[in-house]
């Protein structure tokens, strides 16, 4: 038996024994544990699963054991992920520390920073949030204006960050700040680690058109941050952020795996179609078929990209189209279901409405977010046109 099959068997055995059956079902909305100092569990099973994985070091399976990680190599880490997925285990927690800033500290942090921050991340004891986006900057991240002025051993931070997920439940933030306004757009940016309890930090949750959200706006009013909390050198922030965002897809896919299951488009459409007025019914059915065909085509495209990639073909163009296609198709499906559900999809809350249809309505409103967040559809099209199709920038 090879080393890897041995590991696979032992991992599988451990997971079977330690992942409570209730944790092998899709989580309800908001049902994933947000790790940190104010961690809260909805159930005993949730807590068990959290603690067992933590103690095993498997919140960060590939980190060195000295920092609280599992010490696995890349191959065993992948095997562990496969087994977690095979058993449909929920993510034991959400933790931007382990997923995002942790790897950057491992690679570029000082010895002190590693020793101070990594174990807390790996044990899920410290909640981290990301302070990159700013009001008024939109997709143009590098135009950020949140200012950090050096004052002795500290930086004094003034400005604001927006779209920060769970800032209201976070202990620390990793943030991009402008340390040198005179330098070039990218060159003047540095990365700071900011304790959210520092005086001058205010967090305001953001309401969306779909209702409450995990997004917050964070305000900094003369917030003093020790200079030792700067990651890398001054002006290196932009490069570090690029490294960090390389981990984002992986992190997002974990979010994705554990996403609240959406309403089942086809099942709901089949249920609503017979209730539609006679004249509109065939037209609605055709639109459903069209959306279903588009979704079918998209799934086949994912599969084709996977196969072609494995066969060594260049699939970068295909992959660059996924975010655009997925979010636009998702919008379209929700618009259609809204038309099918008619009056019954006009509910904001309350018993008289069917629970699935209330969920549909919120999801419809939420679907607007996906064509904007993480690079708007327009940015995606720019990327496709310029990088994939090779068209020159900017004619007018």
């Amino acid at each position, binding site marked *: 038996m090879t080393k890897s099959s041995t590991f696979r068997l032992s991992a599988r055995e451990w997971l079977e024994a330690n992942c409570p059956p209730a944790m092998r079902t899709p989580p309800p909305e908001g049902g994933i544990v947000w790790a940190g100092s104010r961690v809260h569990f909805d159930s005993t099973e949730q807590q068990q699963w959290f603690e067992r994985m933590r103690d095993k070091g498997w919140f960060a399976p590939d980190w060195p054991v000295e920092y609280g990680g599992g010490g696995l190599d890349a191959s065993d880490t992948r095997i562990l992920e496969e087994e977690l997925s095979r058993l449909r285990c929920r993510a034991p927690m959400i933790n931007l520390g382990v997923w995002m800033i942790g790897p950057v500290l491992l690679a570029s942090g000082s010895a002190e920073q590693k020793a101070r921050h990594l174990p807390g991340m790996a044990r899920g004891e410290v909640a981290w949030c990301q302070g990159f*986006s700013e*009001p008024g900057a*939109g*997709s*143009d991240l590098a*135009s950020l204006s949140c200012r950090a002025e050096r004052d002795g051993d500290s930086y004094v931070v003034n400005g604001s960050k*927006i*779209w920060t997920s769970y800032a209201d439940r976070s202990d620390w933030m990793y943030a991009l700040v402008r340390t040198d306004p005179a330098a070039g757009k990218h060159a003047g940016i540095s990365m700071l680690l900011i304790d959210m309890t520092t005086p001058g930090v205010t967090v305001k949750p*953001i*309401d*969306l*058109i*779909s*209702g409450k959200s995990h997004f917050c706006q964070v305000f900094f009013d003369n917030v003093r941050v020790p200079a030792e909390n700067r990651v890398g050198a001054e002006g290196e922030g932009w490069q570090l952020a690029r490294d960090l965002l390389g981990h984002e897809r992986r992190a997002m896919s974990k979010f994705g795996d554990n996403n609240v299951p959406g309403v089942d488009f086809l099942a709901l459409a089949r249920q*609503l179609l017979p*209730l*539609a*007025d*006679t*004249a*509109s019914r065939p*037209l*609605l059915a055709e639109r459903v078929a069209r959306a279903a065909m588009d979704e079918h085509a998209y799934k086949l495209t994912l599969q084709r990209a996977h196969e072609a990639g494995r066969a060594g073909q260049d699939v970068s163009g295909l992959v660059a189209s996924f975010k655009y296609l997925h979010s636009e198709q998702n*919008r379209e499906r929700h*618009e259609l279901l*809204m*038309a*099918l*559900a*008619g*009056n*019954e*999809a*006009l*509910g*904001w*809350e*309350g*018993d*008289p*409405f069917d629970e699935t249809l209330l969920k549909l*309505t919120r999801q419809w*409103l939420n679907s*607007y*977010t996906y*064509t*904007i*967040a993480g690079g*708007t*559809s*327009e940015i995606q*099209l720019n990327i496709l046109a310029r990088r994939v199709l090779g068209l020159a920038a900017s*004619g*007018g």
Partner: protein
Amino acid sequence: MTLILGEEQRMLQDSAADFFASRLPLAANRALRDLGLTHDTQAWHEMDELGWSGIALPEELGGLAFPLSGIALIQAQAGRTLAATPLLSSNILCAGTLALCASDAQQRDWLPGLASGKLRAALALDEGPRHDPVRITLAAHRVGDNWLLDGAKAMVMDGTLADTLLVAATLDGETALFILPADSAGITRTPLALIDSRDAARFAFEQVAVAADGLLARGNAAEQVLATVLNRARICLAAEMQAISRVLFDTTLDYLKQRQQYGVLLGSFQALQHRMARLFTELELAESCVAAALSALDGDGDLALLAALAKGKTGEVALKIANEAVQLHGGIGVTDELDIGLYLKRIRVAEAQCGDHIFQRTRYAHLIQLAEAL
């Protein structure tokens, strides 16, 4: 048919614009929502005092000699600030029905109250998810001198605040229209919380007794009257949606002219320019449909055809513009803080009410004899 407003229409439009801008501006309507209120009762009384509730109703019963297009003009201005009004339910749908088919006695019983705003009425019609005025299952039968109603209505706009209900029922296989107090015995009313924060309720009717004179019309007459008031309502909703589209378009255009990204104005990106230019042409097409439908509302033009055209076209365009408005505003477009979301939600409700654009398109196909070709 004339497609520009006359002098009197312009004056009413201006005074409605003033009223909503000062009395029910968007901030006030947002505040109502945050308080969980569906409308401002005092402001509604002020509208009554302006005579709006009595538009196009018999003068001798307290009505006002202004053509029906007046209500569409008011509704459009209300749309701009997202103000709720009692006019669509009470006047267009309910009083309008009474004026068309009620007996003199029935008119005397109900119209003065509706025209003055002392009574508020709502039409109980839709039973399923999508608007469908021909599939009515709420049943009426005769018992002695009375009628008994049994069944349910899924979505009655202004149903919570209404003291009077106009109910579409099926009677011996025909459509019949009844009028009765909303608190009649046997009625269960469940308020609904809608995305546009307006008033609506669900109704259950269990052996609800209606007096003999509660029957307004039945059979062909009932169907025709219902068709007429629904067409009028469609035109008012079209006018409202068009007004909202214009606000959203203008807001988005302004944003594109001010907002910078990567050092240049958003509005200078040609891809966005072409999208805005296309929306502009769509908006103007829809505007012409509304203009023609306003004429039809006042008797000059094919009411059914122009109602289907106007609501179909404005609904389609409004959805498109609302979606583009959110998208082109980017991140802030999806925040509740921005007004766009409020308009978007209202459009979804107005689009569904009295038949969405797909429904209207099938109506239009029917009216131009395409369905017969099948």
